[in-house]
Every structure is written in C-alpha cells, then in structure tokens.
C-alpha cells in the first residue's frame, strides 16, 4: 500500500503544486462563461501548510470538486461560482489576515473554512465584525454553535458532543464500565471528555482515571504506564491530529491494544492513512465515510472524485468542503439574493438534498444554532485492512438524535436590527 500511495501522492501533488503556481497567477473562472457574468465569490481559508495541512488539503479538494460540478451545471442563479483559496496555516492570526485580504482585495461574498477550532473561532468573530456569512467547514469546538454562536456563522462538521454521543453506548455495552481517558489538553479535548463523563455517569460506569496530554505530545509512554497500572476496560483516546497517530502507534508497540479495548471519539481517514498496519485498530466515530451500503449518489460521487484526484478516496474532510460549497449555493438560491442576512435566512432550516448529503439521512442546518445535523458513523477499524477500505461503519445515526438542543448547547442567537 505504502509504495503505491506514495507514488500517487507525489504525482498529484507535484501537479497540483505546478498548477497552483501558474493557475494562481492567472486565476480566471471557467472559460465557458460569458465575460459579462460576474462570478459569485466564496473565499476559503484553510491550512495548506502546517500540521493541519493534510486535512486542509482534503477540505480544499472537496470544495474545488463542488465548484467544478456547480459551474458545469449552470452555476448559482446562472452566475459562475469562483472559489478563492487562501492558506491560513492553521494559525488564527494568519487566517484573519487572509480573510481580510479576501474581503478587501477579492471582494468575496461568502467566507468558509477551516480545519482547526482556533482559526474557526477567530474567523467567526472576524465575519461577524464584517457582516459576512461564515460557514465553518471543520472546526469542532462546541462553542462555535454554542456559547459563542453568531447570527452569521454556520457549521457543517459536527460538535464534539455529537462525536462522543455517537459511539458511547456501543462501547459501554460491548467492553465494560471502567474507562480511562487520555485527552488532549485544550478546549476540544476538554469538551469531549466532559461529554463522555456525563454519559458514563448516566449509565453507571466508573472513571478508572484520566490524563491530559498537551497538544503536540510526541511521547505517550508515561501516560501508557499509568493506563497499564489502572487496568481499565476501555482506553478512550480524545486526541487530535498527529497526537492521536503517535499515541496509537505507541499503544501498538507496547501491545496495550491487545489487552484493553481502545476507543475514542473522532477518527479521520487521514489519520488511519498515517498509521502503520499494526497500529490500525479500535472503535471510533467517523463523521462521514466513503463506503456506506445503499446510499444513493454515493458511488457516483466517489467515482467522480477519484477520477479528478488520481484515484484518491474522499475523506470526511473532503465531504465537508463539498457539502459546504453546495450549502452556500443552495442557500443563495433559496434567498434569491447575495445579501448576507437573506442568505443566512436561506440557510436556516436548509436540508441538504441526497446528492449533496451522501448519507441515508437528510441533514439540516438547524435554524436555532446554525449547526448541521449531519449523521455520525460509529464503527471500528478493520484488522489488517488496506487503504482505502480501513473502517467498518456499524451504524449511521442521524445527527438530530445526538446533538444537544440549542438551549442546552448554550446558544442564544441575536440578529442585528
């Protein structure tokens, strides 16, 4: 697997790099459009560099794929769509700079992004100051559609609460009552652990212990020593990005996954790809997966996506980019306007149609907190699996069954008069 995917990656990225160099200089919309048609511009700030780059690339690919598809099918209200991508480098300051540039220079109509919570929060605040619609693609922090919710901010990816609610009962029933948490030491992790603890208490489980690991922890052995001493039934990993990869690798090296059930909230296809074969294990929740039985339009999407990106399979991140771009199109068409307030109203209660949703349920942007009610895909990693078939979805749970009510999430939406 390694060899082949390395080759694929190299070719596509080399080409993408070269193309970006040239195309970026002459960024023109699709040539089929009449010059008189002014494009509708979506500014997308997402990490192309930094530790968040792998996921950023997936989101951008998904969004670009949607852009191409939309323009082929007649654009938005018969105007072309132009997606302008800027590298936020996973850094809130840079992300704000890029958003400023997009607003001032490119005169964008809408803003979307980004992979990480910090940048998403910063952009939400920025968009609010500039009276612009911001659609968060992939930052999970609860506050974004909870305590910090804004009238002009929407979110496509799930909240941390939804991630933890998806697989709890399965794990609890299957493996046992005593849990140990290794949690990433920032808002995302704290929120996840708090959510799990609530559910654990409600079901009469016990905490064997927990440890907070700073973001960027490379060596998890001290944590694992403690885990081993406490002998929990379930080791729950609530880590982000590379930290999760490092921890799973070390668990496998110590052989802990053979004695204790390892589980956690979020797993991403990008993470599984970064793991060696012996470190692919555990029970997790995916936010979307390319392989679902009997979901309409999914096979076509995967096929077309692979054709565009040299055989690469779409990840949940690709879908975020794809669905977000479509959501803006649909909201604009509902509002029949580009005015921020009208589009916001158009997006409130917007239900993604099956060819965009690509899941059996019909997710909707909830009006009260602007959170998309996307389905969760709890399941487990297949033993000895080879890319791309790495994950087995055990059930697909509609988002509205999992999400907290807007009131419980702490969102009090206020609109400008």
């Amino acid at each position, binding site marked *: 697997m*390694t060899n082949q995917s390395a080759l694929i990656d190299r070719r596509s*990225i080399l080409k993408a790099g070269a193309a970006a160099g040239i195309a970026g200089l002459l960024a023109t919309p699709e040539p089929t459009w009449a010059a008189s048609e002014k494009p509708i511009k979506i500014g997308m700030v997402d990490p192309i560099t930094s530790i968040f780059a792998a996921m950023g690339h997936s989101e951008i690919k998904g969004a670009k794929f949607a852009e191409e598809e939309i323009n082929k099918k007649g654009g938005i209200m018969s105007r072309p769509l132009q997606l302008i991508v800027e590298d936020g480098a996973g850094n809130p300051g840079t992300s704000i700079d890029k958003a400023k540039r997009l607003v001032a220079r490119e005169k964008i109509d809408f803003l979307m992004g980004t992979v990480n919570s910090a940048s998403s929060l910063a952009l939400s605040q920025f968009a609010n100051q500039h009276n612009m619609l911001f659609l968060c693609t992939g930052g999970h922090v609860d506050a974004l559609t909870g305590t910090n919710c804004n009238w002009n901010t929407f979110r496509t990816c799930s909240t941390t609460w939804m991630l933890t609610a998806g697989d709890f009962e399965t794990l609890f029933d299957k493996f046992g009552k005593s849990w140990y948490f290794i949690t990433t*030491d920032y808002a995302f992790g704290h929120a996840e652990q708090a959510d799990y603890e609530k559910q654990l208490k409600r079901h009469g489980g016990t905490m064997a212990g927990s440890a907070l*690991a700073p973001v960027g922890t490379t060596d998890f*052995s*001290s944590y694992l020593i403690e885990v081993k001493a406490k002998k929990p039934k379930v080791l729950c990993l609530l880590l982000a990005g590379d930290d999760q990869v490092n921890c799973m690798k070390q668990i496998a090296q110590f052989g802990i996954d053979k004695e204790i059930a390892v589980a956690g909230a979020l797993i991403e296809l990008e993470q599984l790809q*970064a793991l*060696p074969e012996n470190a692919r294990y555990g029970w997790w929740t995916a936010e979307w997966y390319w392989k679902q039985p009997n979901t309409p339009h999914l096979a076509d999407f995967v096929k077309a996506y692979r054709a565009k990106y040299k055989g690469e399979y779409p990840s949940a991140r690709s879908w975020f980019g794809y669905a977000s771009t479509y959501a803006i199109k649909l909201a604009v068409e509902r509002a029949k306007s580009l005015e921020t307030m009208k589009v916001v109203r158009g997006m409130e209660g917007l239900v993604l149609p099956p060819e965009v949703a690509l899941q059996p349920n019909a997710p909707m942007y909830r009006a009260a907190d602007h959170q998309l009610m996307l389905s969760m895909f709890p399941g487990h990693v297949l033993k000895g699996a080879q890319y791309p078939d790495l994950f087995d979805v055990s059930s697909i749970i509609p988002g509205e069954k999992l999400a907290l009510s807007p009131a419980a999430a702490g969102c009090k939406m206020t609109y400008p008069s």
Partner: protein
Amino acid sequence: MGLLLLFNAFNGLIQGAFYALMALGLALILGLNNTINFAQGAFMALAAYFAFTLTPYVGFWGGLIIAPLLAGALGLAIETSLIRRLYNRKDPIYTLLLTFGLAFIMQDMIRTIWGAQGKPLEIPQFLNQPLSSTYFFLTGYRLFVVGVALVGTAALFGVLRFTRIGIRIRAGNSDLETISALGVNIYLLRSANFVIGIVFAGVAGILAAGQLGLNPNMGDALIMPAFVAIVVGGVGSLVGSLLGGLIIGLASGITTAFYPAASEVVIYIIMGVMLVVRPRGLMGQEGLFE
C-alpha cells in the same frame, strides 16, 4: 506509586537518550561550524522521508544506512554552496537566518514531493513489541534507539579522540586560527564536520519516524528539546549534550507522572535554573565562542 515513579524515571531516560541523539549532530555543527543549524529538524524529516521511499527496495536497515548518507550529501551541497560563504562574517545571525530559511524551503519541498498526508514508516516486526509484559515500555525498538544513541556517542567520542580528522575537529573547536596556521584545510574540515552532523540528524530523524510517524512538520517538534539539551549540557561538550538530553528526558518523564501539563515547560525551567546557577552548562567550556 513508587514503582510507577521508577517506571516513569526509566522511561524518561529512554526518551532522554533520544533527545541526546538529536542533540549530538546539532552540537557538532554548533562547535566547529559555529552555526546554530535551524535546518537540523528539516534534515531529520528529510532523511526520514528518504528512508520511507527507500524501505520498499532496501528494507528498514538499508534505509537506515542509505537515507542519512543522502541527507549528508545534500548537507554537503548546502554547506559548500551557501553556509561556507558566511564563515568570515563574525556575527552568528547570518548562518542562523540562512538555516532558518533553508528549513522553510526543505519543509515546503517535502510537502510538495511527498504530500501533506502523514505517512507510516514500517519498522521490523521483531523490534516493534515489548520485551517483557511487566516492563512493557521496554520495546525492542526503544532499546535499539538507546543503543544507537550510546554507540553513536561512543563512536563520535572515539573518532574525535583517536582519528586524525577528529583531533583536528577538536583542535578547531578550541582554536581555529592555530590549526589553520598549521596548514590544515579548514574549509574541508568544516565540510566534513557538517556532513557528520547531518548524518547524525538523519539517523535520529529515521528513528523518530519509527516511533512518531512521518509528516512534513516533524522536524519542528524535535529541534527544541535538542537545543535545550545542548544548553543544559554545556555548549561545546558532546558528553555534555548526551547528559543534557538524559537529564531533560528524565525530568520530563517524572513531571508527566505528576503534572503532565508542565512536561514541556519543565525542561525550560531546568535550563533556566542551570543558566542562573552555572551559566556555562554542565560540561561547557567558558567563553568558547563568545
């Protein structure tokens, strides 16, 4: 708790050996090339990616040998074409900023060539498991890393003490003018030293990738503890760097057991205390490059 502490302390030492291995190459280059090599982390990542690409053809062991040499060759090219131009500028800022910029370029090249997506570097199965179920944290791989760190230090020590080039490097460390007056080609010596430093970085990078996984940014996380190891151990002393690595590994391991949030800050605190109590570090020589 006592046993747990012992486990953690021991585990910290293993981690420390790892820091030390990373610090050695850095210390070597700091010594004779008078360069704070910010690209050291990027060289580590690059060698690891070379190994990743080579492994299907030559296996892990082949990669472990060939990849650092390839990185060393690139190091030689960079040293002779760029860094060498800056030796006679007395101010260290130039080499520092040069290597800082090179690190940017190398990281970007890695992302362009291999992609932003993290990669798994497969290590031999027999190393990839614990040796005993009680002392499960002693995996073959970790012991192997400790072994490489010790052998590497010993080998370097031997080279510096007993070979012609080593003796010259040591002499050059303390008095560049004198040895160049003795007719030693100082440029050649510095190139050789730089390459050795990069090869060390390469080995450290590959070993890190076996444990942490490969991504274009991996060098960023690795370089700082190496810096601290050098400052604590004392600039100019290789044994000091080894000790420095072990000390901060130990401290960080023990801290993790009590208060994980401070596990990174603690190494800087140790460094701060060291600087106040003994500014030249454990084994450092006074005023070597001041």
